């Protein structure tokens, strides 16, 4: 039947069912994107929510000597809080930068979780923030730096290229970490076009201001490596008395080669270890290295931290190297800190520190502890012994040798009244046929006369020293900087 009898009700119900189907499709799809696929959408790199949240609150501070060297300012932009730095160039090798555009590095990068407030340890309760969808205020990072030492090192380097690393031998606390030329990391904060220009300029600059020379640049350590060779020779029993002649020739013909090694100073033929160390005889140490052998030299160098690839302070430190696949001639050169021997300034400070700390190397660290925004400790760095570099007996002899260098050898410039100072200078040649301007090195430690233990060990490298060839430039250019840094630490 047609007419009024057509059961429209039934079709209305069908249409209603169709509408219900549409509603269900919407609900199912909403569940899909809001729950099932939400994580992948959240983690899409083009999703700016994480970045917005990250910069939505002031970043925690990095503290030096109890005072923040960083800050945050409200820019009112989408990425709201921008990083500021107090004394940016001075602390740049420690803080690194925190940029809205270019990310973070050094401490800003290594301690980012704490500074940005995402570290779960900052939460009052586990999973609390997941539940409340809130974010902790950024925590603070308390460094081990001694501001006086840092300033002394920075002032000492001045406008020369170079780096200084200083640490406390008995703990491994890093007291100064300076690299010049430096830059102001605040230039990289924010999102405007000036940031991009600064980034390009800093990266293209010939003198590499963003390179952290103290931990990320390795140099041939030159004569400062003789501390390592001497320790290996004493430990291995190659030298039993530092005042005995070493039966070495001058000039010294490299084994298996016709190259003759000479010295910058007189009196090195058959010299004692004491004389050779004080006046830095290349011939003596080349011979001693060969006498100790590859295995002994490798073990000796590794004891100080060479060839260690995992060191973090907490940011990564470039590994210092002592090549072990060498022939005798190469071993001879390696033993006087040339050939493939390379070290960061921090590594050489660890060498000086080991001598000052009875032969044991403490793990160097830059962060004393991290705290919540209101000062409660989140984590603290404990003191750890990295390695025993040499026997305590050898240490006593090396201390004596290093003290001699400062008292009457090439390191007189490092002497400090009222303190015992031990040091070793170095001039490292580099470049093709050693054509580059030699690097001036000085490594040392200092003990105040009224103290039980040395309070500071330091390594200084100056890249563009006034090239007066010979150890004189290590003692002349680098030693005064080391002295100033050590004095800054010793002076309360």
């Amino acid at each position: 039947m047609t007419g009024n009898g057509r059961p429209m009700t039934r079709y209305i119900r069908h249409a209603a069912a169709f509408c219900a189907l549409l509603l269900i499709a919407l609900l199912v799809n909403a569940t899909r994107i809001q729950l099932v696929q939400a994580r992948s959408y959240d983690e899409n790199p083009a999703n700016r929510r994480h970045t917005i949240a990250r910069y939505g609150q002031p970043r925690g501070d990095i503290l030096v000597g109890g005072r923040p060297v960083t800050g945050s300012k409200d820019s009112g932009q989408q990425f709201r809080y921008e990083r500021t730095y107090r004394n940016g160039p001075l602390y740049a090798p420690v803080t690194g930068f925190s940029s809205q555009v270019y990310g973070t590095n050094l401490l800003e990068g290594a301690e980012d979780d704490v500074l940005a407030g995402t570290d779960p340890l900052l939460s009052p309760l586990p999973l609390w923030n997941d539940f409340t969808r809130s974010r902790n205020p950024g925590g603070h990072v308390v460094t081990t730096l001694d501001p006086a030492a840092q300033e002394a090192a920075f002032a000492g380097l001045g406008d020369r290229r170079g780096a200084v690393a200083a640490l406390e031998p008995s703990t491994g606390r890093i007291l100064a970490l300076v690299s010049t030329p430096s830059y102001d990391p605040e230039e990289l904060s924010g999102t405007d076009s000036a940031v991009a220009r600064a980034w390009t300029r800093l990266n293209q600059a010939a003198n590499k201001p963003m390179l952290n020379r103290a931990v990320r640049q390795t140099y041939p350590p030159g004569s400062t490596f003789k501390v390592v060779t001497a320790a290996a020779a004493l430990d291995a029993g190659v030298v039993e008395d530092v005042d005995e002649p070493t039966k070495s020739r001058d000039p010294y013909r490299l084994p298996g080669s016709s190259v003759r090694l000479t010295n910058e100073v007189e009196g090195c033929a058959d010299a004692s270890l004491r004389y050779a160390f004080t006046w830095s005889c290349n011939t003596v140490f080349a011979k001693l290295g060969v006498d100790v052998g590859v295995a002994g030299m490798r073990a000796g160098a590794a004891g100080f931290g060479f060839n260690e690839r995992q060191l973090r302070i907490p940011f990564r430190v470039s590994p210092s190297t002592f090549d072990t696949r060498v022939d005798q001639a190469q071993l001879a050169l390696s033993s006087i800190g040339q050939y493939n021997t390379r070290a960061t300034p921090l590594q050489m400070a660890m060498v000086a520190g080991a001598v000052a700390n009875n032969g044991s190397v403490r793990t160097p660290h830059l962060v004393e502890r991290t705290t919540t925004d209101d000062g409660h400790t989140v984590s603290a760095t404990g003191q750890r012994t990295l390695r025993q570099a040499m026997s305590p007996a050898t240490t006593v002899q090396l201390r004596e040798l290093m003290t001699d260098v400062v008292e009457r050898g090439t390191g007189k410039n490092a002497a400090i009244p009222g303190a015992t100072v031990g040091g070793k200078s170095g001039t490292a040649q580099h470049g093709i046929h050693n054509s580059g301007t030699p690097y001036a090195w000085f490594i040392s430690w200092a003990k105040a006369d009224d103290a039980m233990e040395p309070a500071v060990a330091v390594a200084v490298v100056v890249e563009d020293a006034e090239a007066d060839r010979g150890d004189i430039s290590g003692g002349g250019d680098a030693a005064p900087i080391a002295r100033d840094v050590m004095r800054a630490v010793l002076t309360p």
Partner: protein
Amino acid sequence: MDCFACYVPDMLSPGTTAQADPPAPVVPLPRRRGIEFTLIVLAVLLSVYGYCDVGVARTGSVPPGAVGYGAGLGVLALLAHLAVRVRAPYADPLLLPIGVLLNGLGLVLIYRLDLETPDDPAAPTQLVWSTLGMGLFIAVVVLLRDHRVLQRYTYVSVVSALVLLVLPIFFPSVNGARIWVRVAGFSIQPGEFAKVLLAVFFAGYLAANRNALAYTGRRIWRLQLPTGRVLGPILAIWLLSVGVLVLERDLGTSLLFFGLFVVLLYVATGRTGWIAVGLLLAACGAVAVGWLEPHVHSRVEDWLHPFASIEAGLGPNQLAQSLFSFAAGGMLGTGLGLGHSVLIGFAAKSDFILATAGEELGLAGLSAIFLLYGLLVERGYRASLALRDPFGRLLAIGLASIVALQVFVIAGGVTGLIPLTGMAMPFLAQGGSSVVTNWIIVALLMRLSDSARDRSGTGAATAAATATATATATAEGIEGGGKP
């Protein structure tokens, strides 16, 4: 809820016909205006709470306009309620509170997005349009005593609808779509009003011709295809509306009109053949438009590969940002005022308003909004079931289906279910024409539901039987009639 059940059984049993009705019962049904009042108060309080919540989340203090906002919305809702009490006492008690809640929530979301774009505040304008919309609601409820009057204007409606659809062609296009008319600083989307007029036309035309249309021509398997004679006018309307809309590049509205037409045709005739023809036409239209029209083609590409622009290094497009927004909301949302849906950029307050709801209210809030729309549609269908004149029934279905289809098209678009087509989320989205139209739709549904339940003898229900008979007789006699 017992009062719902009390009238349902005799009205909803399948096969009930006008003649089979019991002779005019005199016991009046409950009016349920108290329920409506309570729900309206809750809806207003909820909206004010949302408004305050935005302020507290953003600035830490209750926004200064909270009292004015609450009072404004409350007074408007109360006036509407009073109008209903006087002129449509038997109307469905859920329709008005749902409208108030969605409108209030929309204002909260727009106010919240205004905080991100201080130079371009949209909430005050939207409040003015909402006031106008609720004013028109009152006007419709007060002035339109019997919905069957509208059936007289079947052909006036279609002509006005077509004029309104064609009008924007003579105005410059805005953001790729020619759907705006700018008069004296006001932007109006005539297509929005055309929806209601087309619903009236379809209901009127189909109520008059449904039996003629139900004659089947050829039968293929189980599909009963309509005869060519009645296919003509329908094809003409389809071509006209779709043609006009493709010219205006407003695919969403085109889809809505067509879906509306197919639903009404099916309900009026019960012929699955119409569905087949409709789907075939829709498929042809969609493929042709998607292939030939670059604007639409790019929308389809975006839908298939929402992250293509990210992979190409151009950053996320609007749809990708919208998906990020929904995902950021998760189950419970970030809380009002704390999301970043503003990253969507252009149209965050209009087409993409749902993303803000999804991010800040979460899946929980979004589902609640979907269910509110679902309830609104359901009340429309319920009124249709209870009505006895075909025009009223079809009109109720048409109006409810407009809401359902519109919600599906835009919500499905911004959540990546279907290709994105620009449309306004009913009541929520910024857009004056849209909010006014939706209030008219709710007002008409109020009138229809009132007619459905008013058994006092003076209302539409008793007259409906006669009207139905007349309309049917006319339809059988005169092709394209429809004057009762």
